[in-house]
């Protein structure tokens, strides 16, 4: 940690000295109190967002409330970032727009949304997955939002339980986790005409990333409905998809009974957590790794992100503050931990 601070200090000296030498380079003014840090969204209730500076020296909980003196509503689902704005998606049907660095509220989008989940951006358009009435399996949709007027301009009907959305070269990829049910599709929307194709994967597709080779990587947790009679359980898998023709390059299935819940991706490697053990999957892999990198100490792992050589996970509690844990990816040692909001889930880098 000391090293980090020292290097930042050294870097700042370098920038300052550069600008002294060269009048053409204007030092960048800080964009806001919450620039250069980690944001952790917490479902609540009440929902909140925590900030931890990149150098771990300053932390602040309830950032949105502190700036705007109002709460975010129930329950904070996810946050999307576009240019200098953050879009805070709350599943009671509102998206609150803030300046991502100052957290000052800029507006809200609520008309046309019911149970929004995730948001992704394509130029001046945003795509939001929405379950509509969670008990209705036929009313789910993707809301298309014009970012100038901040209005829902159209909605694209999709199958049950759309979850993550990812935009990549004029296509929107939607993983259908299934909402209150189970689904096994990835929808592909062509942004030019909103036409829809579907890719069938294993049950409960959730996290998606585009890997370094330009392929789509999907984590499917597999169904695990032990309460049904008879119980329904299917294999989890990680699927690599060729996005040029939506064909499946490889489908790496987990042994029956294993259900990984979270996946992150950084710099040519995917990371996933299974029963509190962290695994690493390279872009070239066609089979799942046999042994984990290391174990983490959490009681309810609810969110995961990777940046550089660090793994961030949230250990969520819904009755008291949750914890953000930071692990060194190489050594597997715990570097730091921070107290964050109630029901902390997603981790973002600002």
């Amino acid at each position, binding site marked *: 940690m000391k090293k980090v601070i020292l290097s930042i200090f050294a870097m700042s000296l370098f920038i300052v000295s550069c600008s002294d030498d060269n009048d053409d380079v204007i030092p960048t003014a800080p964009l806001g109190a919450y620039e250069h840090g980690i944001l952790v969204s917490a479902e609540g209730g*009440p929902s909140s967002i925590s900030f931890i500076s990149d150098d771990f020296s300053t932390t602040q909980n*309830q950032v949105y*409330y502190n700036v705007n003196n109002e709460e975010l509503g*129930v329950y904070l689902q996810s946050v999307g970032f576009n240019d200098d704005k953050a879009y805070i998606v709350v599943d009671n049907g509102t998206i609150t727009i803030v300046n991502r660095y100052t957290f000052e509220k800029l507006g809200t989008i609520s008309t046309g949304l019911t149970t929004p989940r995730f948001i992704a951006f394509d130029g001046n358009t945003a795509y939001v997955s929405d379950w509509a009435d969670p*008990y209705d399996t036929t009313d789910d949709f993707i809301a298309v939002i014009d970012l100038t007027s901040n209005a829902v301009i159209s909605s694209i009907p999709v199958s049950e339980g759309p979850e993550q959305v990812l935009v990549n070269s004029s296509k929107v990829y939607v993983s259908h986790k299934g909402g209150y049910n189970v689904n096994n599709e990835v929808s592909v929307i062509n942004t030019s005409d909103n036409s829809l194709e579907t890719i069938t994967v294993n049950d409960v597709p959730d996290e998606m990333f585009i890997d370094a080779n330009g392929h789509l990587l999907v984590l499917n947790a597999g169904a*695990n409905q032990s*309460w049904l*009679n008879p119980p329904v359980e299917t294999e989890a898998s990680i699927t690599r998809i060729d996005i040029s023709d939506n064909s499946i390059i490889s489908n790496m299935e987990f042994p029956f009974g294993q259900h990984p*819940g979270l996946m992150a991706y950084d710099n040519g490697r995917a990371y996933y957590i299974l029963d509190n053990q962290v695994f690493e999957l390279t872009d070239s892999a066609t089979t799942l790794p046999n042994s984990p990198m290391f174990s983490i100490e959490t009681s309810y792992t609810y969110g995961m992100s990777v940046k550089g050589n660090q793994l961030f996970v949230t250990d969520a*509690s819904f009755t008291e503050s949750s914890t953000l844990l930071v692990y060194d990816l190489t050594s597997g040692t715990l570097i730091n931990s921070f107290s964050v909001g109630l029901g902390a889930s997603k981790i973002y880098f600002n």
Partner: protein
Amino acid sequence: MKDVILLLLLFFYSVAEAQIATDSIQRLDEVVLSDVKLKRHSKGYKVSVLNDSVLQRNGGSFTDLLRFNSIIYFKENGYGMVSSPSFRGTNASQTAVIWNGISINSQLTGQTDFNTVNVTNFSSVVIRSGGGSVQYGSGAIGGSIHLNNSLKFNAHFENTATLSYGSYDSKKASYLSSYANGKFSINLGLQYIDSENDYKYLNSAKRNTNGAYNNASVNVTLGYVLSDTDVLKLYHQSFIGDREFSGTINSPSLAKYKDQNFRTMIEWERHGEKVDSKFKVAHLQEHFKYFGNKNTKNFTFGKVNTYLINYTSDIDLNPFLKLKPIIAYNYYEGSGSSFANPNRTELSTTALLQYKPNNSWQYGLNLRQDITSSFKSPMLMAFDMVFEVSPHYTLKLNGSKNHRVPTFNDLYWQPGGNLNLSPETSYQVDFGQELRLNKSSLKLNTYYIKTNDLIQWVPGNSGFWSPENVAKTQNYGAEVGLDITKTTKDHNFSLQLNYAYTVSEDLETKKQLIYVPYHKANANLAYNYKRLSVFFQHLFNGEVYTTKENLSGRFYSVEAYHVNNFGINYQLFKTHSQHIDMSLKVFNLFNTAYENVAFRPMPDRNFNFQIQYNF
């Protein structure tokens, strides 16, 4: 089930045959009691009665009544929304609500939502502090609250019609009627309430946009004297409620909730010289529908039918010793969106013994064993004693082992329901002192409660939450209750003060449980001069923590508050048999911004005008 009914019937006949008595007419005064256990077998407990005048004074919501008149704390999700009690620091499913002697806590949640009961249709509301599982079954851990309908058989015909209108377009109409001719007696209560409930959030430009509610309730109590020894009674209560569920300040909701509760009980009483016996059959139905979005037709629901057969007798073994055996059979059948069609049976045997060797001392000893189809129930016991030091000073002591059984949700919810749960068990002692002088009294109580195997929903490895017997808690505290009444020729004055100090902590972390205030106090002042009466109410609710960490702040606690009500009543017209009363009430007199649950504001100052005709 058939065998059990047959067995109970046989038992009933054999006892009844043996005790045909002669002087039973004199005993008809006892008939007014719907709950003998409360009167006869709770001597060593703190029992507070809220009579019909108190019930009339308070708007009619069960939550408001108890918030301002008892030490029970309520966690109310905004006015009129789901309201759950904490009695002596216990949780909502550890407070039993007893309707004419039988528990009406939801089999789904274990709780009673105190905004789904209207109290104006009842004769009295009685608060019994301390453990009562032996007598009242699951959930009577912090205490129990009793809704009683009583019957008078002396010839009379009385009616009360009430209309009221208030802020937020709140309307209420009610009609109470009581008739008897010596052999037959009927009490009827009808009430309809409707409110937009769109109060302004103080210190904000927003309003309570999705909080409208309406409900209708019907109470019928019938009694018929069959013979010198036999009385047949019928109790019925229906409640049909329709509520929107308001959201938090910045998060309006579209949710809606419908409640339907039907309760019917037939009771056959036989009075003998030394033995009174009662045979009861009851059917309870609870049914809710939850609409996540009121604009769609989609909903989830839960429904439970409870069938109950109960036989009990009150036996005078000798002039000092009273025995009350109870045998009861309950059958519960549920259905709902989140579980299939589970059912549960429960056979319980209870014996209550009351010993009064002289005028100064009284002892009670109670035992109960339940046999339940889904889990193993512990043997429950209770003892209590009363020592009358002087006519002005009484000491009371009681101790008990109580339980709270897992609910349908705990056992069968899909996903998560856990069939391996045990009932929560709790041990407690309560020591009380009562000082009486003229018409005034002072009650002091201290208690200790330890609860094991507390059921909590915790996240599991399979990705969903599941209930487990995880926590242990201890509660202790002190309560003061002062009641002063002064009457002169024209002036009546009364003052009731309640204060409770409550510690309720997790035994592992030693932290105060969430939503339990350390301090709660209320005061009720009433004054009457000829045709005019006024009242003033004050409530102080201490800070409550909203997270386990016991920190103060917007995201960790709800601030303490004071709130006041004022009312004035004038009798416009009065004859021997009729009178018309007009009243004006102001709630939240000083326009205080306050919350019961974080980010869910309570109403600003509001008014209610009422006209009541008694004939």
